[in-house]
């Protein structure tokens, strides 16, 4: 089996809430850009949180990078190999300057300060964000914050990218720039988005979260094909 991430029969409910996921099966192959669509509150973000172990399913198996993942220890490795871009960039940026925020991940991976700084410069160069290097994170605009969070995650050289609504609050230009960057990346990725056009432009496969399950759907099909 060469799949990077595989979920089978994942069930999940928030404390004192109705079940959100009711038997999700999913797999991600190398080079794939899997898009997940679905209504607000369908459980798309929840699913991403489960993949990296920030939430634990009540039932089901998670296999990532060829090994079953059950405990916190297992998931730490998953988090180091799968880059998670959060829905709200403000949740992710917490260091005073852009350079420090990007260096945070590599430092967690055990890189030295000099190595981390070299990575910062390299990533900023690659995403054409060099001018942002010493900017103050909380003074960036929404679109700039989004690009910096992506840079911060790419600095960890992840094998898989998980993006939660990456186009939220982006204008047309920034959206085009993000699309260009994503298409240029070699990594497999899972994109959660309800932006039809963006999904169509980027994805190699689209699935829809419906009634707590993932349903395969042809990306150009607009009819609601919901088989719970």
């Amino acid at each position: 089996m060469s799949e990077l991430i595989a979920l089978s029969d994942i069930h999940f409910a928030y404390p004192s809430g109705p079940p959100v996921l009711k038997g999700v099966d999913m797999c991600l192959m190398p080079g794939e850009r899997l898009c997940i669509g679905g209504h607000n509150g369908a459980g798309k973000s929840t699913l991403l949180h489960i993949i990296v172990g920030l939430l634990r399913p009540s039932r089901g198996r998670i296999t990532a990078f060829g090994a079953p993942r059950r405990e916190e220890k297992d998931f730490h490795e998953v988090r180091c190999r799968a880059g998670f871009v959060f829905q709200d960039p403000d949740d992710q940026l917490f260091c005073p300057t852009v350079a420090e925020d990007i260096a945070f991940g590599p430092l967690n991976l055990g890189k030295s300060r000099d190595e981390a700084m070299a990575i910062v410069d390299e990533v900023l160069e690659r995403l054409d964000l060099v001018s942002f290097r010493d900017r103050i994170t909380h003074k960036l605009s929404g679109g700039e914050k989004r690009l910096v969070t992506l840079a911060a995650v790419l600095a960890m050289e992840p094998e898989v990218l998980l993006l939660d609504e990456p186009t939220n609050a982006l204008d047309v230009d920034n959206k085009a720039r993000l699309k260009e960057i994503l298409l240029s990346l070699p990594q497999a990725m899972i994109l959660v988005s309800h932006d039809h056009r963006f999904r169509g432009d980027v994805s190699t496969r689209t699935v829809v979260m419906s009634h707590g399950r993932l349903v395969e759907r042809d990306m150009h099909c607009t009819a609601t094909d919901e088989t719970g």
Partner: protein
Amino acid sequence: MSHVLSAGRRALTDTGEARGTLIDGIDVRTRIVVAVAFAIVMVSLQDLAVLTTGLLAAFFLMLSARLPVARTLKRMAMMDSFIIFLIAMLPFTVPGDAMFTVFGFPASWQGLRQAAEIALTANAVILALMALVGSTEPVTLGHALRRLMVPEKLIYLLMFTVRYVDVLQQEYQRLRMAMKARGFRPSNNRHTYRSVGYLVGMMLVRAIERSERILGAMKCRGFTGRMPLFDTLAFTYRDAVFATGVTVFLACLIGAQAIR
């Protein structure tokens, strides 16, 4: 997000405390005044037997407010951890008849007595406060303090804290999660200290920015420095009975102290 909307969150005014208890029926203002009076009397007492009676009375209040006993005592123990050093040091710092010596330092009986006095007083006061004031809804407490002529600025501080402490808590949790997602594991090194420092700093900056946004939104709705507070507080005969009972009890404590 649906879990947030549909999980039936507790209302802001709901403290989760028992309803229909002896204490619950008494006006919050009465409770505050009684708690303050109780504290003042306890602080002025010295006799150990009288102090113990006060502590027992506080226990009785706790039981009649139907506070969860284990949790309340745990909270009381948390307060004790603040004064434990004082209590442990007192026998060594107060001069008097030596009880025993540690590394050549004598511990005095008089010091031990003072330590016992402080421990009894502090625990009795904190228990009474938790039973009488701690069991009120935070918003009602704000209303009651307003009626008791506490400066409005302090009340607004209390109200905003009640409203936004949860928001800050959630923001903290989200940032911690995002740090975890990038492989952060706290340990004893500079990277950890720096990162936690950034986390705290960022929370402060965001809190200030948020407060400015909130103020802006309030101004847009015509805020001029005063907030309307609506309350339904009313004194009843129960307040009179309760206040009289407590006054008689406190007078008895003072009398017992005077006799001894």
